[in-house]
Every structure is written in C-alpha cells, then in structure tokens.
C-alpha cells in the first residue's frame, strides 16, 4: 500500500474512532439522565478529553495530507470533508458534557416519563446512521439521516412548549425546566451535527454540496 493510502486509512480509522467515542458518550448521557448518575456524567467528561485529543491529531493529519500529497478528486473530497466532520464529532462530545452535567439537577422529573429519553434515542439513532453512512459510503442512508432531522426538531419543539407550560403553571419548577430546556436544545444540536455529517458524506460520495437545498440552482450553487 502506498504511504498516502496508508495515511488516508489512518484518517478514516481515526474518524471512526472519534465516532465510536461520540456514540459511547451519547449512550452514557442518556443513561446519566435516566439514572441521575453523576458517575456517568463524570465518565462522559473523561471521554470528552479523548475526543479532543483525537480532534487535534486528525486536524494535523488532514493538513499534512493536503500539504504533502496534493490530493485530488475523491481523496481531496474525503480530506476536505474530514476537516468538517472532525469538529462536528468534537462538538457532539461537548453537547453531551453539557447535557450530562445537568443529570443530577433535573430531578425529580417534571416531564412525563419517556419523553426526554425519546429525544435522546432519536438523536442517537441519527448520529449512528450518519456514521454508518460514512463508513459504508452509503448515500441513501445519508439522505435518510438528513430527513430525520425534521422529526427531532418537531420533538424538540413539543418539549420546549411543554416546559414553558410547566414553568408558567408552577414557578417552583422554573429552575429544573430551564435546565431541561438547555438539555433538549443540546440534543437538538447533536441531531444537527449528525445532519451536517450526513451532508459531508454526500459531498464525499457525489461531489456536490448537499447543504442549503433552498439555494440549489441559484448563482452560488
């Protein structure tokens, strides 16, 4: 195998390792919320450090590949998109930390059972499928992920309105409800990050930006 191909494989493997960490953090975050577990929240923080380390390492690898190998065509698209996928994965980790550290303080529950968990599960599924689309070079799956984002946005909207109602009805719940609003906002952002990853997968595979479909056919597209 050529040196360049070995390095490209290292890049792909590194992104998969980051994705694996991000998924593990999401899982732990869901559990931390359900179990009020500060131990699991601490574990999320530990994993975040690893994710940050990977980010620095892979950023450097991408720059080295660009500088030393002048990549073109699919190789260029993989590296250019990796430079965007890497920070998305890193941000997923940050959002998990934001959610997990609130796990001990959003109890006792004020939302009906399962509502918050469902948002977490939907988001987790989007991240997992976005990563699968990257690994399996699967354009159809990437498109499905992008479409799923609306459902998560809808769920987020419902929970947001519900939390507002709760705050209006009972001022004693305001603190918990405010934290929960931040929790659901962070989940919703993670789903956006999964969407962004799926868009990059489509760019890698098809060479055409999948972002901002409303601009398609306009002068900048």
């Amino acid at each position, binding site marked *: 195998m*050529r040196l360049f191909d070995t390095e490209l494989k290292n890049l792909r493997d590194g992104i998969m390792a980051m994705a694996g960490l991000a998924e593990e953090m999401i899982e732990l975050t869901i559990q931390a919320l359900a179990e009020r577990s500060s131990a699991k929240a601490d574990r999320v923080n530990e994993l975040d450090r690893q994710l940050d380390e990977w980010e620095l390492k892979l950023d450097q690898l991408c720059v080295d590949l660009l500088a030393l190998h002048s990549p*073109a*065509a699919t190789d260029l698209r993989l590296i250019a998109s990796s430079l965007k996928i890497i920070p998305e994965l890193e941000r997923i980790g940050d959002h998990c930390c934001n959610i997990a550290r609130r796990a001990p303080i959003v109890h006792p529950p004020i939302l009906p059972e399962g509502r918050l968990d469902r948002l977490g599960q939907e988001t987790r599924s989007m991240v997992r499928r976005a990563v699968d689309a990257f690994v399996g070079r699967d354009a159809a799956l990437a498109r499905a992920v992008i479409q799923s984002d609306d459902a998560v946005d809808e769920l987020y909207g419902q929970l947001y309105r519900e939390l507002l109602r709760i705050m209006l009805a009972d001022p004693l719940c305001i603190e918990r409800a405010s934290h929960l609003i931040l929790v659901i906002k962070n989940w919703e952002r993670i789903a956006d990050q999964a969407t962004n990853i799926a868009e990059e997968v489509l760019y890698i595979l098809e060479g055409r930006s999948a972002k901002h479909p409303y601009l398609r056919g306009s002068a900048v*597209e």
Partner: protein
Amino acid sequence: MLSPQTPETKPVKLSVRNMDFRYGEKKVLDGLSLDIHAERVTAIIGPSGCGKSTFLKCFNRIHEVSSAVKVSGDMQIDGVDIYRGGIDEVDLRRRVGMVFQKPNPFPKSIYENVAFGPRLFGMKDKATLDGIVEDALRKSALWDEVKDRLKESATGMSGGQQQRLCIARALAVNPEVLLMDEPCSALDPIATAKIEELIVELKENLTIVIVTHNMQQAARVSDYTAFFWLGKLIEMDLTERIFTTPRERMTEDYLTGRFG
C-alpha cells in the same frame, strides 16, 4: 479561474473534430474532438506518450517537417480549417506561437532574440522594432531585469529568464494562440511561479494551451483541463471540476495516482 457557476462567455478559438494523427503505421491520436475557448488557459494532462505534445504541435503544423505524418479530421482556428482552409503555414505559426520544454534562445543578443520574428516578417524600422522588443519583454515580465543589457548574449541568462525570453520572442509577432509544451519542467519553483503568473496575465489577450506533467500547475493556471490517455481524449471539463469531481474513472485514477 472559471467556475461551474459562471457560464462561458468566450468564443471557441480552436475547434477539433474527429481528428486522427498517424505517424507511419502508428496511430498517435485517435478520434479527438474538443473546443478550446479564446482567452482561456486549457491544460492537457496525461501519462507520457499519450499524445499531448503531438496534439499541441498540430495546431501550428510544426510536425509537417516529417513526411511520415498524416493528420485527418478537422482542426479549425476561428472557424477556418488549419490544414485545408488555405492558411499559409508561416502565417499560421505567427498566429499560433509555441514555447518548448527547454528554453531555446538563439545564440544572439537578448534584443535580437525578440526582434527576430518581426524582422522575419519584414519589419525594418529601428524605432518600431525597439518598441516591439520593449513591449514583448514587458509582457513577459522580463523588461526590468534586462533593459540595461539588451545587447548581451541571451545564453548568459538564467534558465527562468531564458524561458521568459522565449515567451517574449513568441509574443513579439503578436500571436493569437500560445502553445506551451511543459514550459516549466526545467525551471526551479521561483522561476516556475513567475511563468505561471505570466500565463494568467497573458490570457487577457491570448488563447493558451499548455501541456504539463505537473498536475498542480494545471490546477493552478488553467480554466479547462483535458485528460489524454493512449491518444484518446478521456475527459475535458472545467479545471475545478476535473480536480474535484471528475466524471471518468480513468481520470479519477490518474489524478489520485492509482493509475494502471
């Protein structure tokens, strides 16, 4: 650089249809069809022996020194057939200049190198010649470096300067097209950068076709890129497209170094 968002506004300068080039029994170019737009830089890339340089030479019929050569199909400049349109070959070579891989200045003074072409076409007036020489040397970004030593021999110049002198020599007869056959392959990166800047400036008024083995050079200077393989045109498109999203697998493999 042209991008997919900007429609082409320049007319076709050179048009090629179903062109074959045979050298004796050997078919060197096979069924080529493509258009080259005025005031654009078109790069020809491809592995050694794929016919890039041969293709370039067909535009000013410089290969006709060999009788074993047979060109068929259509090649037009401004809609007039280069081979059958009654174009005088000396006039064609004035309109379609060429710069080669290795700088090849005449063993004469810098001034005489540039004045050579205009003199050949009958220019005798000293003041006019002086003007032409200065203009050509300015256009080739050489004037400031040589204006005080125009009488010195061109062979004493650096390789990069010699190549720019060859460009000046080609420009002195006011060509419409400039063919460049690996113009930087014998130059260091600084001299290369100067020639590349020059190419981008010159396309304001010239149609440029450049053959290069340096893929990054093609990416940097050209608007269009054509990929040749075994005498065939595999793919031609905007350079930006070729280097990010080529349509053909062969182009992709060549650009990513996974060819063959």
